[in-house]
């Protein structure tokens, strides 16, 4: 019985505070202080101390009568014992039978991204993250193992067990996260009908028992700028090229004088440097009966286009508290509160700010001499982007509360019962002010038709006011009724609420030291509901955003209107999982979940989702003798999961059609058939086979994880076109949702981690991951040859297709074969191409019919695919004494992008590549001539591979250089750690793509209400991601 003291240090000799030192076989222990020192009284002389700290290998040290026991902990480089969350339970890396990607919260938060999913890009094999919008608060698309459906491809996201929408991931502060585990294979089936697109399990930070309060402050401030500006023509080049184009079409050149110099650089006017800042404060600790982790944060990001007009601001508050409320009964309380504010500008498509910026004439100034914005009168629908930004007013405020109460009762050594109630409540409040604004004559965005902003009158109707008898007959006399067109404000209040009540029993026992048995049995109820109320009011005083509120509007106006909607859905589930391990060598797991979903009718309301998986740890076999490999495991799994992500009650034929018609000059609301019903509707089903091998080499320095998967999704849930005679295509109507079509994804995943040190002071780690995706549509509904999507040009064709034998959403159009050089070539080619002239694109006669047909699809073919062949992530980290350097590279190879941000208007500006246009025989065989005509037809702008570009890119996502002050110095200010750093996000992008940002993904598809998948890879004028330079610090107390 002695007093034992000691110091715990890391391998560099730095003191480690907060380390647990426990006397083995007892619950007595101590925690190291700031100096890494601990004191244990009453320790037996023969005690064994367990020294443990997260991220380090635990050590057992025999006291053997000593009174000073120091310990040096080494980082846990290959944590085979690391916990992996698998849904309603955990396992270890060593025992894992499925395919799970794990990323630590510290890695994610060190990347300084606004969104959690942004940080995941390039971090986990099999997880593809791409950007739907680079604007602050913009959404991302998360795709786990490819595109399985042209419906909803979003994975199920759970935050501490609470379902979280992928759109709402903005609300989560990356610094609050302990870990992310991505269930990729069939074992995700423990989440049944919601698991087909994979499951992302996010765990928030928790305190540790018996640890002193530790306070962490982190913050950074940065400056953002665009990752790229387009190479556009300057005013002189523009004038020359426009004159040439007009002359080619037999029209008078528009510019008598082409010496216009550089003119206006609209991009310079529109893009700006914008600040970003983020500050976090976390406090963790615990007593012997409870733990706590409390956090708060503030983040604010302004837009590189629009500044405060496109901004995102977030406050987070969080508490994670556990306490033993009775012996063996523990309560966990998690509460995450978020307040968000987002402002946006029009993005994507012909109305967007960047589209206007790209197409505006460099020969026109931004402002008139009197300071007002110019009208860009030479265009019919291109408006001054600066005027547009100045007149855009909208904001969305979100208040979100997510939490759970979980009771865990440890019945005995083997049984543990958990019951929890999770909830996710969000109030989304948005307001849009549309001022009276005049952008120039005839602009569609005008709300007034004169610069003085005198309200126009809208003719509502004419009405019979009297009858006059003339020529012996009654004649009706009519008068028009008009109201002024006024400014307006629209306010929308939406409430979303979901809850889940779950209970599950876990069993865990090892028999005779060799048979390890685990089982989970549970039940889950999930309910989701929401409602919205929206109103518009007119005539805001002074045409000013300061008064933009329904309460300030003129209440007597005719056009005030309100709308509302509500929805609800429910899920009822039972699940069972059994796991068996023999001597840590053979592992077998089987599970089944039964889900009943209110999204389907009685014919197909519930389904069973089974999965089996197994693993064999070769390196545990007596015959396995290798100095090189310390660990080798072979894994295999097969499982079935479902996807029920469609709107509610789609199986029913609801009267949702729009049937409004004017009688007596008043709109009368009728009733009409809406989306057609389908009582046989059921979930789509994914069957996934996965095999993998894990290796650990060089004493844990090198870890390799490989996976090969085949994922077949059947009975896709969507609304393919139906014959017109079914009558689905009236306003508000749509075809029935049906189950039809199959998609196959297969691919290979590789994850390599290498950790080593050179000498005592230089440590480094390299992480590399690779994902290949082969996507193919393998079946479509009867009678459907293909499904079209996306949009190209204005009122143009749909450029993407879903078709058997091709990747989903591939680009479909004409192939080109150079440029016609001479008239002789046009006439003697042997293929007729309507209206072709020298300098025009030469299209390939795909069907060998002898002519290029522009009125049907006979000469169109595959001209590209938005799906990358391969994505890779490379993560580097170096530590030398107090310095640390890290970097993340993300690579996407083989994805094509369809260029669709160039307006086909005679005077629209052009990208500089047009300088290489065809000007005469032999000048070029790539870029066609410039041509503008009001009478002749030119086909250079039909959908063709001329508009398809290789979107492959490599991007340095994050580089960081940090310095941790020596403990002696940080101690002086009472801190245990002080690290300062400088970092850059999106520092450099290597790509041949001419557009703003090759990291773009599916955006809203105007032609496909059921999803955006078929709009992938089309650049509608994408808001690029920012390049950010920042400086920050981490301070721990």
């Amino acid at each position, binding site marked *: 019985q002695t007093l034992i003291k000691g110091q715990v240090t890391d391998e560099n000799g730095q003191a480690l505070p907060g380390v647990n030192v426990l006397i083995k076989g007892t619950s007595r222990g101590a925690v190291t202080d700031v100096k890494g020192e601990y004191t244990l009284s009453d320790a037996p002389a023969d005690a064994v101390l367990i020294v443990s700290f997260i991220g380090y290998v635990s050590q057992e040290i025999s006291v053997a009568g000593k009174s000073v026991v120091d310990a040096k902990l080494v980082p846990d480089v290959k944590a085979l014992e690391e916990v992996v969350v698998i849904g309603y339970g955990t396992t270890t890396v060593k025992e894992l039978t499925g395919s799970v990607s794990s990323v630590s919260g510290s890695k994610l938060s060190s990347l300084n991204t606004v969104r959690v999913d942004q940080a995941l890009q390039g971090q986990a094999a099999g997880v593809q993250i791409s950007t739907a919008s680079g604007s602050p608060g913009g959404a991302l698309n998360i795709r786990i193992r490819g595109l399985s459906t042209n419906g909803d491809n979003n994975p199920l996201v759970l935050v501490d067990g609470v379902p979280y929408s992928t759109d709402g991931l903005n609300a989560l502060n990356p610094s609050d996260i302990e870990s992310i585990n991505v269930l990729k294979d069939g074992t995700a089936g423990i989440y049944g009908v919601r698991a087909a697109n994979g499951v992302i399990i996010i765990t928030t930070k928790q305190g540790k028992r018996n640890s002193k309060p530790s306070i962490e402050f982190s913050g950074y401030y940065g400056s953002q700028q665009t990752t790229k500006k387009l190479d556009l023509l300057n005013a002189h080049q523009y004038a020359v090229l426009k004159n040439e184009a007009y002359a080619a079409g037999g029209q008078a050149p528009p510019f008598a004088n082409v010496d216009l110099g550089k003119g206006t650089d609209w991009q310079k006017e529109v893009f700006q440097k914008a600040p970003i800042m983020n500050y976090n404060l976390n406090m963790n600790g615990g007593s012997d009966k409870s733990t706590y982790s409390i956090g708060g944060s503030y983040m604010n990001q302004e837009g590189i286009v629009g500044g405060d007009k496109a901004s995102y601001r977030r406050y987070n508050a969080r508490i994670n508290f556990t306490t033993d409320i009775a012996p063996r009964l523990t309560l966990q309380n998690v509460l995450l509160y978020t307040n968000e504010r987002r402002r946006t500008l029009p993005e994507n498509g012909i109305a967007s700010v960047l589209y206007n910026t790209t197409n505006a004439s460099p020969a026109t100034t931004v402002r008139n001499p009197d300071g007002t914005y110019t009208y860009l009168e030479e265009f019919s629908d291109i408006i001054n982007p600066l005027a547009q930004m100045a007149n855009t007013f909208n904001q969305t405020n979100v208040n979100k509360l997510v939490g759970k109460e979980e009771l865990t009762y440890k019945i005995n050594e083997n049984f543990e019962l958990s019951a929890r109630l999770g909830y996710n409540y969000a109030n989304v409040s948005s307001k849009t002010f549309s001022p009276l604004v005049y952008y120039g004559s005839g602009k569609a965005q005008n709300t007034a038709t004169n610069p003085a902003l005198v309200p126009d009158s809208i003719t509502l*109707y004419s009405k019979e006011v009297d009858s006059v008898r003339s020529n012996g007959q009654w004649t009706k006399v009519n008068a028009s009724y008009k109201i002024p067109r006024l400014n307006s404000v629209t306010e929308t209040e939406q409430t979303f609420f979901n809850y889940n009540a779950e209970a599950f029993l876990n069993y865990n026992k090892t028999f005779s030291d060799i048979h390890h048995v685990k089982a989970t049995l549970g039940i889950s109820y999930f309910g989701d509901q929401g409602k919205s109320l929206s109103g518009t009011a007119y005539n805001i005083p002074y045409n000013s955003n300061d008064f933009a509120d329904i309460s300030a509007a003129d209440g007597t106006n005719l056009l005030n209107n309100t709308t509302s909607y509500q929805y609800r859905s429910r899920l009822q589930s039972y699940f069972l999982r059994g796991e068996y391990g023999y001597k840590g060598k053979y592992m077998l797991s089987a599970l089944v979940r039964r889900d009943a979903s209110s999204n389907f009718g009685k014919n197909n309301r519930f389904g069973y989702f089974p999965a089996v998986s197994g693993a064999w740890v070769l390196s545990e076999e007596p015959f396995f003798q290798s100095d090189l490999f310390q660990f080798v495991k072979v894994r295999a799994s097969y499982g079935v999961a479902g996807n029920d992500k469609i709107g509610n009650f789609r199986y029913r034929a609801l009267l949702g059609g729009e049937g409004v018609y004017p009688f007596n000059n008043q709109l009368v609301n009728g009733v009409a058939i809406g989306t057609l019903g389908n009582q046989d509707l059921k979930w789509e089903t994914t069957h996934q086979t996965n095999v993998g091998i894990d290796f650990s080499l060089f004493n844990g320095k090198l870890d390799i994880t490989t996976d090969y998967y085949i994922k077949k999704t059947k009975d896709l849930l969507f609304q393919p076109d139906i014959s017109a005679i079914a009558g689905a295509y*009236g306003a508000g109507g749509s075809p*029935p949702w049906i189950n039809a079509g199959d998609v196959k994804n297969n691919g290979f995943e590789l994850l390599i981690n290498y950790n080593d040190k050179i000498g005592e002071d230089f440590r480094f780690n390299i992480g590399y991951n690779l994902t290949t995706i082969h996507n193919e549509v393998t079946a479509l509904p009867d009678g459907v040859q293909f499904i079209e999507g996306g949009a190209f040009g204005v*009122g143009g064709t749909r450029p993407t297709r879903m078709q058997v034998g091709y990747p989903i959403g591939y680009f479909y159009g004409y192939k080109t074969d150079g440029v016609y050089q001479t008239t002789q070539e046009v006439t003697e080619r042997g293929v007729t191409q309507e209206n072709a002239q020298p300098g025009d694109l030469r299209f390939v006669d795909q069907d060998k019919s002898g002519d290029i047909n522009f009125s049907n699809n006979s000469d169109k073919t595959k001209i590209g695919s938005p799906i990358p062949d391969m994505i890779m992530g490379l993560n580097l980290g170096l530590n030398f004494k107090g310095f640390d350097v890290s970097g993340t590279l993300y690579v996407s190879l083989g994805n094509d992008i369809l260029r669709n941000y160039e307006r*086909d208007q005679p005077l629209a500006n052009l990208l500089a590549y047009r300088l290489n246009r065809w000007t005469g025989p032999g000048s070029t065989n790539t870029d066609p001539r410039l041509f503008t*005509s009001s*009478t002749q037809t030119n*086909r250079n702008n039909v959908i063709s591979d001329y508009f398809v570009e290789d979107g492959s890119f490599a991007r340095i996502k994050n580089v960081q250089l940090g310095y941790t002050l020596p403990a002696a110095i940080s101690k002086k200010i009472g801190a245990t750690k002080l690290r300062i750093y400088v970092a850059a996000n999106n520092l450099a992008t290597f790509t041949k793509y001419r557009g703003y940002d090759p990291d773009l993904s599916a955006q809203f598809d105007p032609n496909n209400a059921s999803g955006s998948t078929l709009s992938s890879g089309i650049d509608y004028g994408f808001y690029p991601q920012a390049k950010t330079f920042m400086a920050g610090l981490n301070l721990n107390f």
Partner: protein
Amino acid sequence: CDDYVDIDPQYAQDADNYFLSPSDYDKALTGAYDLMQTSYLDMWIGEIASDNSIAGGESVTDSEGLHQIDNMSHGGVNNELRSLFRWMYAGITRVNYIFENKDKLEFDGKTRILAEASFLRGYYYFELVKFFGDVPLVLDKRLSASEISAQPRTPASDVYAQIVKDLQFAADNLGWTTSTKGRITKGAALSLMGKAYLYQNKFAEAAQTLDKVIDEGPYTLSTDFSTLFRVASEGNSETVFDIEYVGIEGGGYGCFVCLEGFAAVGFHSIRGYKGPIYADGNSYNLPTQDLVDEFEPNDPRLATSILDIEAFKAAQLPVKVEYTVGGGGHTGFYNNKYLKRADELGANDNDLTSPVNHRVIRFADVLLMAAEAHNRKATPDDTKALAYLNQVRTRVSVNMPPVNATGGALTQAIYHERRVELAGEGIHFFDLVRTGRAADQIAGFKVGKNEVFPIPQAEIDLAGAGWLQNTGY
């Protein structure tokens, strides 16, 4: 044990649990009227396909399908034709939904509802048969997905028979006038029936039916042709059948099926326009010199029907008028009947919304159809035909000299009169086709092929009913 998930949608009705009150029938009827608002496209194509106008627009790839129709190079893949096919069947289905449930409830006034519904079905089928020839005839029920492949293309003559039957029912049960502006009348039903006979070259039946409208109906020609197409003249004495629009309902470019406004007005209008009277638009459907030349000298209808932009520009001086030319073509002329006016703007995007009604059948058209029917029937009554023709020519405000001709010369005079009187109203292409003159007048028109448009290829595939494509496509 799955009671928890057995929930119903809130505040929403099922299509299979409707028609519980008389007002349910009325609402369903309003829903069936609604699809008529999509037929702005039928009108538009009726012009572009003929020699009356060119497609126009921003570029030749802007609404490519219209340019193909303009050039007579259209095929089975054509967005506009497919929209038309879909919309008309959507309208038919909304009518059939009412007939499917017609016996669910008995109440006063049901006959009137069924009569109006019959008219609507007749109208939608008439548009289909006019464009596509043989089309599947679906009656009195909604089709389930599995029934579609059992629907053959019904011969056009049978479709016409059903149209006449539906219109007869409507005519028998509706009055000549209605207290509700926008509701279908007996006159509309009989006039459309006369038109349907004319399209089948059943001249005697056409003459008889149209005479009834002329003799018994309340219609007279308006005395001011120049304001006939303005909002203020809606519901005038010449109105037989209008599709109603008010300026409020609009739409977006993302969803043309949601378009509830009279988009033709904004789309026809002058691109980049700056000046008095008119308002800016998208320069589609531009009249040709050939149409202008058809007008006799001093015919006041020319100025009402067609705007000569350069002449207008000169006339406005010293007020400056500006406009631009679209890449889809320019003729110098605009469809002045349906052209956006500064004092007739709709709400929101007024390219897509207009308060102007679509005049589908005017009394002048009734008179000219009757004239043609009397002139071309087996036993011609040229006296009557001439009287009708001259009534149109000599109306107050037009005052063209009366024609004096018989036989073939009279036929030609009627054809001429139809082209100028009805210029820009979407009728000329079908007039040329049914009178066998299309090949002479329309460049690229192939006899035996272009009389009807191709059935959208996707519809042939989707139906899976073994429909054969129209000859030549």
